[in-house]
């Protein structure tokens, strides 16, 4: 019995002593944390996608409070979330343009010829290291979904061998951009609704051999559009997203793209959908 009591007392004394040490240490070595960091982190979407260039949402919150970034730099946050953060901190919203990703290729299995049988790792980077991948075009989408797997928002779908971004799901975090071994994915302003879905720098005839929807640089769209709306670079034309007035769907009243690579976003999605149902 005596041993028991001695043990209990010893434990109690050790407990009280250690408790006191912790208590003193907590007062002495206290780290001041800005309570606003938690507040802003709370208001952020919490996707930790890294689209802002910071290592997750808490890091971004820190940069907003330090004034390094405006709240609108978060590509995922909605307008309401951004203004809530700005209001909570009493700062300006900032005027970052909302962006979405676009895969600049229209060559799915129906449009682009598969030249060889590919029997290997189902990953775009790996495939592109073997003879440049199985597709006929050396610049087009490989369709093995490396970008789709990288997307934290499930906004990329592989439709019939072509990666298609769903603009309503895409938040423009850019996680897909670096994964594409062909550099086909670019972030464009959300307001841009007309794109040229081709990135091949080859000559028109060479592109026509392997694909039915390439940009052959006929420049019909360039002539129909206003000045500065398109950029011509060698044998390919692209939409100039820095133009003062972006190309909009009204361009289709003046011009019909002979190959069909100049498409509105809606048309692009529609075609892909139709083809999937055909295949299914």
């Amino acid at each position, binding site marked *: 019995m005596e041993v028991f009591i001695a043990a209990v007392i010893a434990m109690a004394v050790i407990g009280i002593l250690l408790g006191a040490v912790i208590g003193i240490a907590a007062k002495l070595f206290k780290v001041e944390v800005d309570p606003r960091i938690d507040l802003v982190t709370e208001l952020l979407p919490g996707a930790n996608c890294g689209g802002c260039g910071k290592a997750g949402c808490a890091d971004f919150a820190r940069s907003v409070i330090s004034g390094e970034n405006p709240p609108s730099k978060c590509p995922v946050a909605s307008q309401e979330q951004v203004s809530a953060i700005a209001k909570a901190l009493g700062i300006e919203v900032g005027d970052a343009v909302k962006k979405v990703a676009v895969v600049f290729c229209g060559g799915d299995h129906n449009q682009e010829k598969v030249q060889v049988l590919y029997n290997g*790792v189902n990953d775009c*980077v790996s495939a592109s290291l073997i003879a*440049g991948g199985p597709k006929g075009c*050396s610049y087009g989408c490989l369709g093995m979904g490396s970008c789709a797997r990288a997307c934290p928002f499930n906004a990329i779908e592989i439709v019939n061998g072509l990666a298609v971004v769903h603009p309503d799901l895409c938040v423009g975090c850019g996680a897909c951009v670096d994964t594409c071994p062909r550099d086909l994915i670019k972030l464009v302003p959300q307001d841009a609704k007309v794109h040229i879905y081709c990135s091949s720098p080859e000559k028109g005839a060479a592109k026509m051999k392997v694909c039915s929807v390439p940009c052959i640089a006929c420049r019909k769209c360039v002539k129909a559009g206003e000045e500065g709306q398109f950029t011509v670079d060698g044998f390919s034309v692209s939409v100039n997203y820095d133009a003062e007035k972006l190309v909009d769907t009204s361009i289709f009243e003046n011009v019909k793209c002979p190959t069909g690579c100049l498409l509105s976003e809606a048309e692009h999605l529609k075609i892909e959908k139709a083809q999937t149902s055909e295949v299914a």
Partner: protein
Amino acid sequence: MSKSKGLTFKGGIHPSKDGKALSSSAAIQDAPLLKEYQLIIQQNIGAPPKLLVAKGDEVKKGQLIAEAGGFVSVPLHSPTSGKISKIDSIPGPMGIPVQAVVIAADGEDQWGELMESMDWKAAEPQAIKDRVRDAGVVGMGGAAFPTHVKLSPPPGKEIDCLILNGAECEPYLTADHRLMMEYPEKVLEGAAILGKALGVTDVYIGVEVNKMDAIDTLLAKADDYGVKIVGLQVKYPQGAEKHLISAITKREVPTGGLPMDVGCVVQNVGSAAAVADAVVEGKPLIDRITTVTGEPVKNPSNWRLKLGTPVIEAIKFAGGVVCEPGKVILGGPMMGFAQKSLLVTVTKNTSGILLMKKDEITQYQSVACIRCGRCVDACPMNLQPGSLSAAIESEKFDLAAKNNIMDCVECGSCAYVCPSNRPLVQHFRRAKAEIRKITKK
């Protein structure tokens, strides 16, 4: 030399079917002149050469078409006389379109002005190195690394041993075998010239013992040139430079190191012959010996093909095909590259054009690793391919790097023995590319 089994290294494999008998007795033939040659501008590793000609220019055989674009670069010469009809993009051997000079041959195949013949025994080593560069000589075994760079070790690196690679361990290929059989003096003289340029007296030619006829031919004349012939065990990848060094000198190249770190330089026998041509005859490198082989080929044979010869024409030289091929590979079956287009043209490192039958090509289904460890036994670099591929599949490239993935020579021995058909080399190629990308940043 040890006659019986030959020297070797640890690991490696021996493919059950080596296919060498198809073409090993076919003498080297000169290819007929074509109407057009499509000369790929970048045929060497390193900086691309700078083009000196334009559309419409007349060129002579051997005329300089592009000059070296840096130290790790070599010039390029015209394979025949004719007119430059265009400079165009053509399918490249790696599947990516490349720029090429298209030469319409005039049919006369007339040499332009040759470089002066050198008395190499009296020449300065630097003069030999300059000549090797000016002739556009690269590693003709497959890597196409400029030869003169290997001859110029940085100060502080002492070279005491030159090894010529005549192992030709890739199945099916017989180009080096025929070269050693038919032009032994050229190979030996090239070896002696390279030895002189490096200032070394220990010059070896390593040959696998399945080519006893080539060994005997070389041995008969080797003493005149002060070159030693070494028999090597028949095993793949015996011709990889680190393994050749290990087999012959018992030295081990440190991880991440180069042969010159252990005082060795390895050159291909084809490059040695090209060096002899360049130094003794003043001829630039404009053609090479290539094996056109495989069961679908009517007459598997060895050809002296001009650079820029389309693969389809080379197959026609060998009599065309007897059955529909399933795959066309540039190089050997182990490390060669399957082609998408037959319009690809012969470059300085095209050691073989190999056709495979449809039923030889398996569309395999790869399944999970069963941890049998055969890949570990087979790996000549002492790596653990199985666990490396698992790390890479879950994109843990840092873990792969820590486990020395960068030492992988992509020989394919692991994938060859894998009972689960895992695409190991493809994983490793990807990891190496990703790691290079990260370290560049």
